[in-house]
């Protein structure tokens, strides 16, 4: 079975083969040098200022790029996994910059790193303290009663939960790949999440360490993305733009804070193992989360090739809410491609901006 070697057509010029081998060696050496001397990788270049800060978050306000086209400001709730600069990775692939260029006013919650002492920080804290504090701040600063809440991945789920509890402060809800009905989730992450004894983790190490997240991520598309990307890097090492893109994404992939233990415990047990959210049985603080309480306009954006949150897991949100004005947008891309790619700039963001602007006057 394994005995066959590589047979090369005798008619091929040996010099061409030798030249190819020499080229591969040169590229490998250059790759090594580039990776060694990578240094600081610039990300998140869109001008902003920190307008409010607490122990576990910073609230960023982006400077307007054009005159405002909408009265209602957007508060973006990023996920608790990896860092928020994926939304502003580089100017030509920046979700934030694109919405700014459409005349929207944007605030972003940039989560900080929880320490061991934050082990007991829960969903209740994230929703009713941190997000609510930011909403209050934005309302005061912009003198509006209601804001547009916009969330990505886990941040989208947090935004949904917030909207059920504080609908009086939210005008529109725009979610990107929220985890809603985990029974419909067909991803490897969903499979692992159903079999983790998260209480043991909570009792022994407290917060979920970054290293365990990296180990989990390495099981997602391990060859197409895990191995092939390095082949592609070597192949394109002479293309400066390709290399910079690669380094920025790589930096983001390996830059994740730990997740507060109690929050992760609730995320796994209540959402993935018991699927309480879509059943309207999840409890946050003293309140039961009832998705049918959401009556505000809803835009739910999903990626058909999402390997972290299945579109089938996100889409049931549209059926669970009571909103009359609701829309599900599906795009042929992946979880990260949905927010940080040329595809998203050309196909996703114009539609998203249009939807938000039409409901923000």
């Amino acid at each position: 079975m394994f005995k066959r070697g590589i047979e090369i057509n005798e008619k091929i010029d040996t010099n061409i083969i030798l030249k190819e081998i020499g080229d591969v060696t040169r590229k490998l050496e250059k790759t090594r040098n580039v990776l060694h001397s990578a240094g600081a990788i610039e990300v998140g270049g869109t001008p902003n200022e920190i307008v409010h800060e607490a122990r576990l978050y910073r609230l960023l306000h982006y400077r307007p790029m054009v005159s405002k086209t909408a009265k209602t400001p957007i508060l973006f709730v990023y996920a608790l996994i990896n860092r928020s600069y994926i939304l502003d990775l580089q100017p030509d692939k920046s979700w934030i910059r694109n919405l700014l260029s459409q005349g929207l006013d944007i605030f972003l919650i940039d989560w900080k790193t929880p320490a061991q002492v934050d082990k007991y920080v829960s969903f209740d804290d994230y929703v009713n303290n941190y997000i609510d504090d930011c909403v209050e701040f934005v309302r005061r600063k912009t003198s509006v009663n209601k804001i547009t809440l916009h969330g990505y991945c886990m941040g989208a789920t947090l935004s949904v939960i917030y909207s059920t509890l504080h609908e009086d402060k939210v005008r529109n809800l725009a979610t990107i790949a929220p985890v809603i009905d985990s029974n419909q989730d067909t991803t490897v992450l969903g499979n692992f999440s159903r079999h983790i004894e998260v209480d043991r983790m909570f009792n022994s190490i407290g917060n979920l360490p970054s290293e365990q997240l990296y180990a989990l991520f390495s099981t997602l598309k391990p060859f197409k993305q895990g191995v092939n990307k390095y082949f592609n890097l070597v192949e394109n090492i002479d293309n400066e733009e390709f290399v910079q893109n690669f380094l920025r994404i790589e930096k983001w992939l390996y830059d994740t804070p730990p997740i507060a233990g109690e929050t992760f415990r609730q995320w796994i047990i209540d959402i993935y193992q018991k699927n309480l959210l879509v059943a309207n049985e999840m409890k946050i603080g003293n309140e039961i989360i009832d998705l049918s309480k959401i009556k505000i306009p809803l835009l739910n954006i999903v990626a058909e090739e999402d390997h972290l949150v299945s579109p089938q897991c996100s889409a049931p949100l549209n059926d669970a809410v009571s909103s009359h004005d609701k829309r599900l947008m599906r795009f042929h891309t992946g979880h990260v491609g949905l927010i940080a790619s040329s595809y998203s700039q050309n196909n996703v963001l114009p539609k998203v901006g249009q939807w938000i602007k039409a409901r923000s006057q």
Partner: protein
Amino acid sequence: MVIEDEVNDNRSNNNTNRNTKSLDNVDPSFMQDQIAKVFNIWSDISRLPTVGPSFAYSQYSRSDLKEFVEFGKTFLELQIHLNEHWVQINNTYVQALARALEKAPKQYNSKQDFENYRKIAIDVFEDAFTGLFDSKEYAILYGLVLSNQYDLLTHLQKLTEKNFKVLNLPTRSEMDDLSKDIHDLKKTVHDLTRKMEALKINESENIPT
């Protein structure tokens, strides 16, 4: 009372033997009885909960030993689960390799042939490993490996905590309690601040202009 009687017995026995020059004539069963009595009395004393000289130490050593045994058992379980994990990874790798070789072209005529085959091989390995990671069997095994690792840490923490007590340092469980208290306090402070802000707003709205 029992101890006093036994002491009196011993005195009377000593008096009886005062005139003898050696212990050769002593009844061996008497000596055995005496040794047994001394042992029992000391055992009674050492079992006293607060003043027994050996009790605390013996309990301490016993719980240490128990923790070490549990640590060993968990370590063995981890080895078994890790081995099973690597068996599944290796089997998947070998199967994928065989499938990739089956799909290899008989002859490479150009650089493009190499490129095309690389894509095929990546797809084959991707399908094989995603199939493995998607399986319930592997997810359960992965969960067990993680649980064993968490349990090992818990045993180590319990062993370390005892040494921390000896060094008069705060233990992890004490720090944990403090973290919980700090968290609850912060929540209370946050709620009170919010209520105060709301009161201030209400007051300012009620001021007649």
